[in-house]
């Protein structure tokens, strides 16, 4: 019986493996460029976020990215998750003006943001965003690492991937050459272009690579804030199931002992 079980399990594994491989191959065919792994603290099955890195990443988003990119699925209160205190969150929220209303007179009005507000979007609507960006729409970044092949590794590669176009390639007007962007022509100008572009509160040296890493990590957190809880729960669930499985198999052997 045990042998039978192993055979079945091996077959099931082979089936799922070949299925997985055919799917992986399908995915690989889509992006021709190899994305170098950035080795984040959350890469790997049991990785976790580095809170200091997330906070630096948020600073970059706030000072650089948020000029064009919205993150409308996040609220300021979510920043408690990356280690900001209640007062800090309130201060971040209050630093922006949010449109609210209508009030009792039927008029819209501006007020300082609250922790419960969603991140304020830089543009009123997609058309306004395109008008300000040479016709290109800066995508919302709330789930961007889930929405791109390669996830945070891809974002990091993209941010450090600007280069001179190869000889013979003429870029369209207002476009920039990027090694990792599909098609290589990207409308976004290099957002993190020089070391020391901003000053980190924790004194970390703000190299382009460091900044790209930090903001990619922050965006990964924004897309998957549940990642640490999920993995921790997964470990406990698997340990529980392993024990339960052992016990169940023992009971099964016992029950079947008189049959063979």
């Amino acid at each position: 019986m045990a042998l039978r079980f192993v055979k079945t399990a091996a077959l099931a594994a082979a089936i799922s493996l070949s299925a997985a491989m055919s799917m992986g191959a399908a995915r690989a065919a889509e992006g021709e460029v190899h994305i170098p792994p950035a080795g984040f603290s959350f890469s790997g099955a049991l990785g976790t976020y580095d809170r200091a890195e997330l906070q630096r990443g948020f600073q970059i988003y706030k000072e650089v990215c948020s000029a064009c990119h919205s993150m409308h699925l996040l609220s300021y209160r979510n920043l408690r998750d990356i280690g900001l205190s209640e007062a800090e969150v309130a201060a971040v929220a209050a630093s922006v003006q949010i449109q609210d209303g209508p009030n009792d007179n039927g008029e819209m009005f501006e007020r300082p943001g609250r922790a419960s507000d969603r991140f304020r979007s830089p543009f009123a609507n997609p058309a306004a965003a395109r008008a300000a960006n040479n016709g290109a729409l800066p995508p919302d970044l709330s789930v961007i690492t889930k929405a791109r092949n390669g996830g945070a590794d891809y974002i990091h590669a993209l941010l450090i991937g600007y280069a001179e176009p190869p000889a013979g390639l003429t870029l369209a007007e207002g476009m920039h050459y990027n090694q990792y962007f599909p098609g290589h022509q990207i409308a976004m100008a290099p957002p993190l272009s020089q070391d020391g572009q901003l000053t980190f509160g924790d004194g970390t040296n703000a190299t382009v690579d460091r900044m790209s890493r930090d903001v990619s990590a922050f965006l990964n957190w924004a897309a998957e804030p549940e990642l640490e809880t999920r993995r921790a729960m997964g470990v406990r669930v698997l340990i529980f199931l392993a024990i339960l499985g052992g016990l169940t198999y023992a009971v099964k052997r016992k029950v079947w002992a008189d049959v063979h």
Partner: protein
Amino acid sequence: MAGLHNSEFANPVVRWIDQRMPVFTMMQKEYGTFPTPRNFNYFWNFGALAMINLVIMIATGIFLAMNYTAHTSLAFDSVERIMRDVNYGWLIRYVHMNGASMFFIVVLVHVWRGMYYGSYKAPRELLWMLGVVIYLLMMATAFMGYVLPWGQMSFWGATVITNLFSAIPLVGNSIVTLLWGGFSVDNPTLNRFFSLHYLLPFVIVGVVFLHVAALHITGSNNPLGIEPKGPQDTLPFHPYYTVKDSVGIVVYLMVFAVLVFFAPNYLGHPDNYIPANPLSTPAHIVPEWYFLPFYAILRAVPDKLMGVLAMFGSILLLFVLPWLDGSKVRSMRFRPIAKWLFLLWTVNFFVLMWAGGKPAEGVYVLISRLATAYYFAYFLVLLPLLGKIERPLPLPESISRPVLRGGGPLPGAATAQPMEKA
């Protein structure tokens, strides 16, 4: 007492109910003492696994529906709100999302087992056909469920698949308009898909009930494909198969847990985290993995209508499989030629799955065509032919003979032995 069922239960409450409505007697008969062939291997776990998976899908789906908004401008954000703000919403959604993949894995193995061991043959033809109905309902349900988050693949997948119906002569375009509820995939489409996605699982429950009811008339097939000849060939379902199914359930849950907790988006497509945009077509529109083999068949045929017919035909063929296979021998163990041709068909199925995920160009088209040809040839040419020309190996006399190797103690005495050896 006249008019009351003659209950065997001693517990007064159970007895009182059972006399008036013998559900306990029925459960005891169908799941307690139900005589089951003693030689099942672990492939016979997958029916129970599919049943459990269906329950998981309905349970998680009900809670998702409490928080989902079926409107084109709100659907995507409402799903992300479930992920962020609903208590354990991420867990419920990832279980539901990966549960669909697990459901297809489990059901495909279940179908494969039926094909390998000839479970579709007389007297189980109707049981098999009900299974094919369930499979079709599952595909419809999964397709509509994938549309609900209203991401790019949701939208464009829905556009491609619904457009297939326009290939039908005369009424095709009217059918598509009816499916869409308008002249493009839009809010009415999303609304009706949500409604149907909630309805169809309960239809599946109904057909599963019929599937199990039919099973309990004919009894289960088994790896030898020969009918039990008496009590020496069977075991009561409980505890033997309840405990054996439990082992399978734990293994199944472990695979499920690895997906949900450590690779929740592995089987999905990143484009579905981009909100649907009718003005921007993704580079490659790829359906979910469980549709890929049929997608490959669709694209292998140059003509649209013929492609659609081939795709639907590839599944509808399964309805007549019991009559295409002319061999009286059920289990492939005793069919020296059919066994290898079927294993090749299995490999071929994965080739189709792989090809379905590739762009429809160059060598992939050729591979898809060859694989499609073999898919159909197996059912329409090889199986009918083998029924006439193949010489099956000698069948064992009974189930208990080969199980109790070397003659062993005679049937019946086996279960009375002390519980010692493993």
